[in-house]
């Protein structure tokens, strides 16, 4: 069954709240505060920080669909602690300033039990300090290293998706073993790109390889050919990770630059999330390799869990919407929303969560988690949660483009992405 945009608007209470707020913006007292002490029939309110507008909108649309689908499934299975789950979505405009405001709105106006769902790292980092001060559990689905780096706080967790440091590190053995040892990296000149630069460079050196050149592209750039001559001639593997709408130009110009004589290409699918691999200009990617958080195309050995998850969200075997084959999903990331809400459910049930007063218990319950077996709650694969760093670790996939489809060629072990703890959040006060 499909969760089309607009079909599930009835699940939010925002209309009613807005009428209250609109009536007397500053003066009205928070009538909704009474929900705080509601009895058990009251829904669990989850504030969903969604990138509806701004640069993250393509991701936001699919994070929204995945979230609506998993909530429907959780509710059909009896909700959390017997209470229904209600999603209260607020757009953060993919902006850290608005993101922090939205977190305040969840805690202070909507009376949400938790906040959830942020992808873009700068929004996470801008919002997390406020979530910590408001003692609002904040479950992000961002793949940033910000949580595990210790930069954030006790109330911010990432239990549904592996972080970039782990992802990148897990790629090095395959790249060095199968594609080549002399690597040139092209990445956007901002923090996400720098994470790739730093972690992959170390990881490939540990495999006996080396990075010949780092080419950092300013994120405002819209044409790329002029930078490609900086790629050293003896490059065996070109490692690329670009994000943003200009990535189509990037790939196309890369193909035009190299013509028939290109080195092996290894990229992160982040570049081409929500983009059809069969788009004009992307023919050049044929035969190249990609990291995938979750294989976009249904594989020949598809698990029953992936099948069920795909169906629930409304994604076909090519990773596009079942109602519009041109509407390609952000399949490599959005499973994190699904899995995170199942972690929240498990955490709330373990903590006996009743009301916001139990938020601390919820944090402790999630921190106590370790192994998460593959299943309907974890369709991407098994995971291992580290309570100290608040970060989950999972399998990564490497796929090759064959006949315009991404075919999985390698699955990393969870150990491939392991690294020493950088923080122990459990020592921070609740």
């Amino acid at each position: 069954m499909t969760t089309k945009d607009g079909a599930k608007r009835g699940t939010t209470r925002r209309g009613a709240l807005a009428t209250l707020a609109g009536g007397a913006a500053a003066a009205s007292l928070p009538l909704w505060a009474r929900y705080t002490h509601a009895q058990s029939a009251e829904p669990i309110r989850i504030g969903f920080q969604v990138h509806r507008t701004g640069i993250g909108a393509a991701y936001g649309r699919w994070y929204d669909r995945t979230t609506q689908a998993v909530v429907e499934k959780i509710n059909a299975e009896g909700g959390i602690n017997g209470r229904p789950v209600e999603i209260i979505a607020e757009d953060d405009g993919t902006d850290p300033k608005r993101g922090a405001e939205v977190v305040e709105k969840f805690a202070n106006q909507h009376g949400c039990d938790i906040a959830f769902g942020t992808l873009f790292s700068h929004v996470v980092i801008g919002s997390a300090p406020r979530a910590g001060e408001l003692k609002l559990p904040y479950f992000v689905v961002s793949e940033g290293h910000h949580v595990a780096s210790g930069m954030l706080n006790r109330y911010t967790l990432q239990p549904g998706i592996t972080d970039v440091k782990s992802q990148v590190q897990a790629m090095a053995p395959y790249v060095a073993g199968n594609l080549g040892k002399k690597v040139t990296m092209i990445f956007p000149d901002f923090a996400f790109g720098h994470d790739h630069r730093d972690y992959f460079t170390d990881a490939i050196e540990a495999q006996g390889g080396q990075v010949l050149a780092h080419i950092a592209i300013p994120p405002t750039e819209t044409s790329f050919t002029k930078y490609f001559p900086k790629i050293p001639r003896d490059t065996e593997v070109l490692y690329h990770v670009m994000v943003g709408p200009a990535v189509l130009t990037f790939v196309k110009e890369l193909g035009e630059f190299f013509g028939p004589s290109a080195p092996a290409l290894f990229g992160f699918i982040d570049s081409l999330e929500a983009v059809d691999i069969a788009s004009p200009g992307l023919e050049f990617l044929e035969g190249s390799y990609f990291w995938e958080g979750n294989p976009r195309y249904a594989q020949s050995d598809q698990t029953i869990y992936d099948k069920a998850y795909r169906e629930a969200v409304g994604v076909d075997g090519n990773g596009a919407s079942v109602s519009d084959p041109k509407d390609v999903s952000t399949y490599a990331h959005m499973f994190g929303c699904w899995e995170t809400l199942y972690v929240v459910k498990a955490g709330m049930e373990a903590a006996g969560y009743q009301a916001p007063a139990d938020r601390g218990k919820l944090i402790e319950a999630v921190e106590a988690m370790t192994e998460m077996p593959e299943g309907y709650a974890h369709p991407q694969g098994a995971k291992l949660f580290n309570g100290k760093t608040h970060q989950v670790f999972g399998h990564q996939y490497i796929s090759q483009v064959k006949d315009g489809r991404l075919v999985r060629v390698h699955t990393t072990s969870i150990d491939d992405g392991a690294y020493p703890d950088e923080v122990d959040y459990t020592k921070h006060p609740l």
Partner: protein
Amino acid sequence: MSRAHPVALHLGFLAVLFALGFVLPDYHHGNLARVMVLATYAIGYNLAFGYAGLLSLGHAMFFAAGMYGMGLAIRLFGADPALAMLAGLVAGLVLSLVVGALALRTAGVAFMIVTLMFAQAVYLTILLAGEWTRGDEGFVIQAAERVVLGVDLTGAMARYFAALGVFAVGLLAALRLVTHPFGKALVAIRENEERTRMLGYDTQRLKLGALAVSGTLSALAGAAYGLLFGYAGASFAGVQYSILPLLWVLLGGAGTAIGPFVGTLFMFYLIDLASGVTTAYMLIAGVVLVLLTLFAPQGIVGGARRLFPGWFP
């Protein structure tokens, strides 16, 4: 209706904001704290734009100078937050003097473009220095680093009154300026620079002074925003944060002391309330802006000033 003295009126306004700090519900309490800091930025912008007629499209660089001057002083050198605030102010002052010395050779649209490009260079420099700034992602200013002179700024009350303090500095500075000969000379420049010069004023120096005060006040707002809300990031140096203060000032009414606050508040709640009604809230915001230009030509406070002359300097 008797005429109130402008200073009394504005002090009264600050008193109302002070009182609101004790009665507002949590959510609006937090919002108003944000609005007051951002309004300080708008006031800073207005000193250059509304009074001296300098239309800049690059003020985000001054806001960012304050934010990063403060943030990096703490992040790299573990500076005391009060000292870090000072570092932010100095960064804003120095940058505005350098930019002013170059950009004020131009006027009108050329000034607009030169400031835009300098701001773009500052934005890219923040990305280039990613090792220290963490680029677009930015960095958290930890709770423990946000205790200024024994006051913990992570608390709602402390934050609100700190924001009010920053806003009061901005508002009173703007008020003082309009009654001061310096401010009057700026208005004269705005109206007719040639004539002002012929009257014997060094208009270049006056404009540089205006830009320095404007930039420093913007930096104050940037530093305060970072410290109060615990985050510094490159998005605050982006071009949209240069256009926003212009929008706030024009909405509230340029050349008034209180207009920037009204414009900032209006825009904040326009987005906030419209997003509660529909996901297409930008559509509503857009239509409202268009309607405002059609029906409130002088901005919100500009309209009020026409109704009550003498109330709003």
